[in-house]
């Protein structure tokens, strides 16, 4: 059994209301020095050893991410 991580982020040119809301809240909470925040998703998959990285990329592309507005990265842990 292997552990694979998929990080999904909005494409850079797409508006990220979540990230903006967080970035705006930080100074109000007394945290300075944060220029930008982008918010995305983080998935941890436990997969059988015979599941290839290619298969995980396909899962990410069809289910975990919406390729119209999101990019993703896959890495083994």
């Amino acid at each position, binding site marked *: 059994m292997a552990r694979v991580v998929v990080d999904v982020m*909005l*494409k850079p*040119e*797409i*508006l*990220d*209301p979540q990230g*903006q*809301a967080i970035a*705006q809240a930080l100074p109000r909470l007394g945290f300075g020095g944060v220029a930008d925040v982008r918010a995305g998703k983080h998935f941890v998959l436990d997969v059988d050893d015979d599941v290839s990285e290619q298969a995980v990329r396909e899962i990410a592309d069809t289910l975990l991410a*919406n390729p*119209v*507005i999101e990019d993703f990265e896959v890495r083994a842990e």
Partner: protein
Amino acid sequence: MTFKIESHNHPSYVEPYQGAATGVGGIVRDILTMGARPVAVMDSLRFGRIDAPDTARVLPGVVAGIGGYGNCLGLPNVGGEVYFDDSYAGNPLVNALCVGVMRTDGIKLAKADGPGNHVVLFGARTGGDGIGGASVLASATFDDDGKPAKRPSVQVGDPFTEKLLIECCLAIFAADLVVGIQDLGAAGLSCAITELASAGDVGMRVRLDVVPLRDSSLAPEEILMSESQERMCAVVEPEKLARVLELCERWGVTATAIGEVTDTGRVDIGWHNEQIADLPPRSVAHDGPIYDRPIRRPDDLDALQADSPAVLRRPSTVDELRETLLRMISAPNLAGKRWVTDQYDRYVQGNTALAHPHDAGVIRIDESTGLGVAVATDGNGRYCRLDPYVGAQLALAEAYRNVAACGSRPVAVTDCLNFGSPEDPTVMWQFAETVQGLADGCVELGTPVTGGNVSFYNQTGSTPINPTPVIGMLGVIADVANRVRIGWPEGCRLLLLGSTRDEFGGSEWAWHVHGHLGGRPPTVDLAAERALADVLVGAADAGLLRAAHDLSDGGLAQALVESAIAGCVGASVRLPGDPFVALFSESAARAVVAVDPAEEAAFGDLCAGAGVVCTVLGETGGSMLTVDGVFDVSLDELRAAHKSPLPARFD
């Protein structure tokens, strides 16, 4: 009141969630920009076949997007439609309607006045969204060239920013701080400022370098054309500017004075020390091209109309009729839509007197008097395919009837006309017929059209969608406490209003059971619709209606089942005439009402006075729907058949 319906079809196909969400956002800003408080939304949806793989992608996304945006704005969703038909595969229709309330002396115009006044841009920061969108999007095909896009092809809505924008605008309106206001839609700032200037017959000087940006790499022309969502532009007198900026600050809305009104009669756009444009506003805002498109009646229409449903095999035995009933109420188009409507907040604002599954949404607008409005949307692409003139009038009549059935007097129309390519002469013919049908129908019903929207190019290759005008009807109700529900109480007399003919052209029965579309749609009789509405509204005012439901798709059978399920009360019914025709014909100008037996005579007088045929169907009560001599079905069985198709497909 102000209300309007608008399409967001193509973006909802590309990215269902965001496309539908930004559709809601856009129509809400249209209402807000009038100076009105948005009070409710509705959505009229069309998808490909329910079992098409793409429908499984598009429908859940669209519904979640409409809910996600509208729920976050705090606008109750009080109704709409969901239809499935192959004709919309690849061309789903997402039409969103918004209703707003304002004082007539508080109407705001999209008009700049008074040289020296400030032009204030407020709301979201400007990004590279939808540049070139207005003209490109509507007709774009998807050629994915594989290159990374510099500019986003899809817009992401930010309902939280829009909610703040709404509250901020309402505070600004309440303090009477703007001369004119305009939302930013297609072609963004360029369109907003030229429209404001040309409507006021003034000039304007605007500096693009002060526009707050989300993407600092934007060139001035891109800032001008950006279609970033959730932005408004207002014209403000100098002594009121500070107050406007203060209210924006209170609501956390970014606001910037980007220029001023001038008396030059020209729009002068600057970027740092450069002049980017200098032109008379009229040339942009008003001098659009005028098309004279060729029109041709579709070649296949005669054959289609000649292909009468009379040849279709009808259920004849008692068992076949029962089986047909269960099959019909579980047809995707007739099945319960709670899978969809449960994703919409219908309670927020605390003024919703009726919402799904009723004939119309009813919203209280004055808590002290109970004054309210009712809104319904309707459209039937199959009828329009068979005869667009008649089909448009049937859609109009159905919306009119739905509003009246809940006890409200229909007063005005908004329309969303969804068609294929206008470059196809036969589509253009459908469009022309539809518009004529609507115009004639509105004159006859006395309901002015206050606004609407046209969506062309809904087609795949050379195959257009069925012509689909969606009609939104607004009604007024003096006291929402008198609104009429569809669910029956026990112990009422059940009456059928109107005349039933053998009409199955374009019907749900022909389509669902036989896959047949041909013949003529049901007859339109707008005088009969008026008479029926007079009875329904008069009886509701007089407190004579215990329940009412209009008859439309699926005919009497569908109406009986919906009412029984809604009220959890059955009925015992005797059918007039041929049972199949009585149950499933889609003749227009009909409704079923429930009245107290003691008030039946008074109600009968009302019908006689209006010349509306009133036939006794039976009595309400029990937990069965019994059709005398034909079948009886338990409410449990009806409910199971009616509610399961959407969850079975989309859960």
